[in-house]
């Protein structure tokens, strides 16, 4: 045990803090939680006098859930999908089944949606989903078989087509089939698609998370891209939870709980808005009209099985699209 402890001391910078939390999250939330962590640490110190340090781990949401189940001892998990958090209960017995009821808004303190990024001046005049099917428009979106973000893009397209066509499944299917015919490259991950669009200058429109779209324009140049919000899109509700088993083991349940509660405070919600996630409180913008997976697809598990399983709808239309 001693040598191991020494290794940690050598490798770690945070070992001296009074309390340490590990927040295992997904890829696009890094900057959000950096700010949240600093603000929370300050608030906690003011309230209790205790020093708390929050370590962050980011990666693909499914992969992160798997790591937590395999022993990455997260005190809190802040993932992309309820499906991934459910796995912590179903596969890892780390949290109770009713975890989603423990915090307001189904334990999702912020939301996000899928928007379009186009090149400056919007040369192809893309304003809504139908415009994506204009002749010659190339759409950049990653492969839904390998990328979580890509599934949201797919479901957003499907759901918006359903809305426009009064719930006609066949027309929605036609729309999505045509859409993927106009995808020149299926990158394996969201960040790869962003690079394809932003740095390799391929395609006319990129489907992306709203916060990613803002990050892209900030980092690669506001003068190069524009963000287009469609009239209808999907509502993503990334959930958060205390990982009971690890928090109890570390004796950090109280502070972990306070950390998640902080996200719902006005201060927390302001930070959420600053990073282009949508806060739960305050005025909500008119565009887009949002639908949830539960409403349109009967939940994530069902959507997954119908559309993305082997020989699911995506395999059928993409095979056909080739």
């Amino acid at each position, binding site marked *: 045990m001693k040598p191991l402890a020494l*290794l940690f001391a050598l*490798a*770690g910078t945070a070992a001296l803090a009074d309390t340490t939390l590990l927040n295992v999250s997904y890829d696009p939330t890094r900057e959000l939680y950096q700010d949240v962590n600093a603000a929370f640490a300050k608030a906690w110190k003011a309230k209790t006098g205790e020093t708390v340090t929050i*370590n962050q781990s*980011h990666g693909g949401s499914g992969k992160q859930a798997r790591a937590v189940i395999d*022993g*990455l*001892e997260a005190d809190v998990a802040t993932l992309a999908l309820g499906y991934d958090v459910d796995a912590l209960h179903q596969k*890892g017995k780390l949290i109770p089944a009713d975890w989603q009821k423990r915090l307001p808004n189904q334990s999702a303190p912020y939301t996000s949606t899928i928007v379009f990024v186009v090149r400056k001046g919007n040369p192809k005049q893309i304003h809504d989903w139908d415009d994506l099917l204009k002749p010659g428009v190339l759409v950049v979106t990653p492969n839904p078989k390998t990328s979580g973000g890509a599934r949201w893009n797919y479901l957003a397209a499907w759901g918006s087509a359903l809305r426009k066509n009064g719930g006609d499944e066949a027309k929605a299917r036609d729309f999505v089939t045509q859409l993927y015919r106009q995808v020149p490259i299926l990158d394996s991950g969201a960040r790869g698609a962003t690079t394809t669009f932003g740095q390799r200058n391929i395609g006319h429109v990129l489907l992306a998370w709203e916060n990613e779209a803002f990050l892209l324009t900030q980092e690669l140049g506001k003068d190069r891209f524009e963000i287009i919000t469609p009239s209808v899109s999907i509502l993503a509700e990334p959930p958060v939870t205390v990982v009971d088993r690890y928090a109890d083991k570390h004796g950090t349940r109280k502070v972990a709980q306070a950390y998640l509660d902080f996200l719902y405070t006005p201060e927390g919600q302001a930070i959420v808005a600053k990073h282009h996630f949508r806060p739960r409180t305050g005025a909500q913008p008119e565009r887009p009209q949002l639908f949830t997976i539960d409403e349109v697809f009967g939940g994530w598990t069902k959507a997954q099985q119908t559309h993305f399983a082997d020989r699911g709808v995506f395999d059928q239309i993409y095979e056909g699209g080739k």
Partner: protein
Amino acid sequence: MSATGSDAIREPALVRYSAIAVAIAFLGLSVVVPLASVLVQAFGQGAGRFLAALREPETWAAIRLTLLTAAISVPLNTAFGVAAAWLIARYDFRGKGVLTTLIDLPFSISPVIAGLIFVLLFGRQGLFGPLLEAHDVQIIFAVPGIVLATTFVTLPFVAREVLPLMQSQGSNEEEAALTLGASGWQVFFRVTLPKIRFGLVTGVILCNARAMGEFGAVSVVSGHVRGLTNTMPLQVEILYNEYNLVGAFSVASLLTLLAMVTLVAKKLLERSKAVRR
């Protein structure tokens, strides 16, 4: 034979020069240009930005973790590699073929699989998971797991360099040393080690380069906790994905520089060997 080869195997000058030109162009495009572009990206906004990027706490932690990992796994694999090569070259025993194959195994399996092996062994739901949890020992998603995975992936380098040397040189000198009264350790340090030293250095350098550069296996067992369990290659990926190009290329070029330093050290050693001949 002279260094340029005999006349009999010479090609016409035109063929020779075009072959050389093609080789240089190929190396230039596939090695020099990408490496140069990494350096340009890193230093493009000045050495100050480069140094600042390396001083960033998470990056600095990644550099230290990488050095620590190499500092543990390289000596371990050096000792193991020499011992295994010694056993295989000198003795006949049951299971020798199996041992030889096992040494090569990490070369032949994907690093991702190598990482998963440790998850399956030491993960919470793995073979030793309950035992480790009961004693509150953390292996994967922590430094020990990273060291283990790195050690596993870099295991063959030293053994593979040293073994052929030992096999081709035979054991006459060792036997002579024994008859002159040397103990086992004296034989090893005074005779065997000097005989294999150049191969050993090559093996250690390759082992070190891979230990510092390994991505796949380490990525699986790291847990990606910032400032704690990210090594330099993982940090490069993270920085790149966060559009921090200067940071990413600064760490990348530091890794490249470390690799080049070891390569230059190897070249110098080889030159000193040539001079002594």
